């Protein structure tokens, strides 16, 4: 028997309490080990979708399953271990007074203690190249460093899938490249929410376009980015001077 997909979203629909419908039936799968970009214009429902992946929002209709486990009230703890969500603003993600405590927060909530906790913290920081900042307060780090520590905070939970919300936003070109190298080196499934199309092309074989609350396209990133009409239909465009061919 083959392993269940890292992420399986089927017929997911959601309306906000005020009645605004954000998702209208989203269907897609992410296989284990894949790196997939979720593209879409502002207001397409990307963030709403991401909030469903670890049960912060509960589906109005349809299901989300992570490595075969459906997201639901009873499975939240395990789901949140399996789905590592990296928020857009690292100042929202890093809320503890020191890097060490911040990276330890997740695994400690899972009941990891003592030497195993220390090992996980060091290991996660090592993987993003930030081990030397372990005793520093997060607000003393540069923006790029904070984003990398934010990735470490979820890696320490040993997730099944890493979900990144706009990972390249506000990064200078060098930090952007360094983060790409780190992400490429990780052996986890990645779902990357972005409208930085070159970044998607650089990191992800496959892309989805979420537009108007449904998946409007699903295919190889290169092919999707080469289809100018498709992109234009969904308010996406490559930056000036770029061409995916």
């Amino acid at each position, binding site marked *: 028997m083959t392993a269940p997909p890292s992420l399986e979203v089927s017929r997911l629909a959601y309306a906000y309490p005020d009645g605004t419908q954000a998702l209208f039936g989203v269907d897609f799968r992410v296989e284990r080990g894949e790196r997939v970009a979720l593209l879409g214009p502002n207001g397409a429902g990307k963030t709403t979708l991401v*909030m469903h992946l*670890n049960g*912060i929002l509960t589906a109005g209709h349809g299901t989300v399953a992570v490595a075969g486990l459906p997201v639901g009230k009873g499975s939240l*703890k395990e789901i*949140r*271990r399996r*789905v590592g*969500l990296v*928020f857009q*603003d690292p*100042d*929202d*993600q890093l*809320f*503890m*007074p*020191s890097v*060490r*405590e911040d990276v*330890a*927060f*997740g695994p*400690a*909530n*899972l009941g990891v203690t003592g030497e195993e*906790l220390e090992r996980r913290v060091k290991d996660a920081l090592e993987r993003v190249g930030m081990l030397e900042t372990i005793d520093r*307060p*997060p*607000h*003393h*780090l*540069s*923006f790029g460093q904070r984003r990398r520590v934010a990735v470490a*905070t*979820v890696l320490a*939970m040993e997730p099944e899938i890493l979900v990144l919300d706009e990972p390249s936003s506000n990064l200078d070109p060098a930090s952007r490249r360094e983060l790409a190298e780190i992400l490429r080196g990780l052996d986890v499934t990645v779902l990357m929410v972005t409208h930085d199309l070159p970044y998607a092309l650089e990191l992800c074989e496959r892309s989805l376009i979420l537009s108007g609350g449904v998946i409007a396209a699903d295919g190889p990133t290169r092919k999707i980015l080469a289809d100018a009409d498709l992109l234009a239909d969904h308010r996406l465009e490559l930056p000036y001077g770029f061409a995916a061919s």
Partner: protein
Amino acid sequence: MGAGHHHRLHRPGDTLVHRLPPQCKLAAVAGFALVVVATPREWFWAFGLYAVLLAAVAVAARVPAGFLLRRMVVEVPFVVFALAIPFIGIGERVTFMGLSLSVAGLWAAWNILAKATLGVVASVLLAATTEPRLILLGAQRLRLPPMLVQIAMFMLRYLDVILEEMRRMRVARESRGFVARDVRHIPVIARSAGALFIRSYERGERVHLAMLSRGYTGSMPVIQDLSAASRQWLVAGMLPGAALAVLLGSWGVA
């Protein structure tokens, strides 16, 4: 963005005093303050001995006098208040350098000045030798309600972020030609303060989501082991212990 600055109260070091667990130091400072407050104001020499004890701690912690003096500025409002009492006090009066002063007021002023100064020096020493977050963790070990500790922790973490946000809003105002000159500008400042409050509130919501995403269930996990050995309690107990000995000894004499 804020990089490389330290909390101004803390003075990093690796002395015996720095290494003591925070809960021991907190309890020691509290105990010392209680003894000081319980000392009758007429026992001048007891206060002198208390000062000597604090000086000994400062030497052990390698905290220079200049550092201590600069941080004692927080006491200034109390000093001003204390100095005013002899002038406004009632009852028997003495004349000193042409000024008519109330005797009861002079005693009250001395009482406030001596006790407040000792308390402030002890607190400054605590802050100088203990990282702010460790003070909070120590307070938690001493059974301060965890909710209060969490609130203080977040304040510690987000103070710089909020100040930076405030600075950006000021730059944005001034870039459009606004300079606060007189009272007519208060409404603008007030609206900015309101906007800052809402932004901070929204950040709070996002932080909460981030916490939930990493398995937060209402209580902070214990990450750092802060247990204190009985030897360390003994060391920390030396300050209030010695002060208590002075107090009880004086009682025998008086």
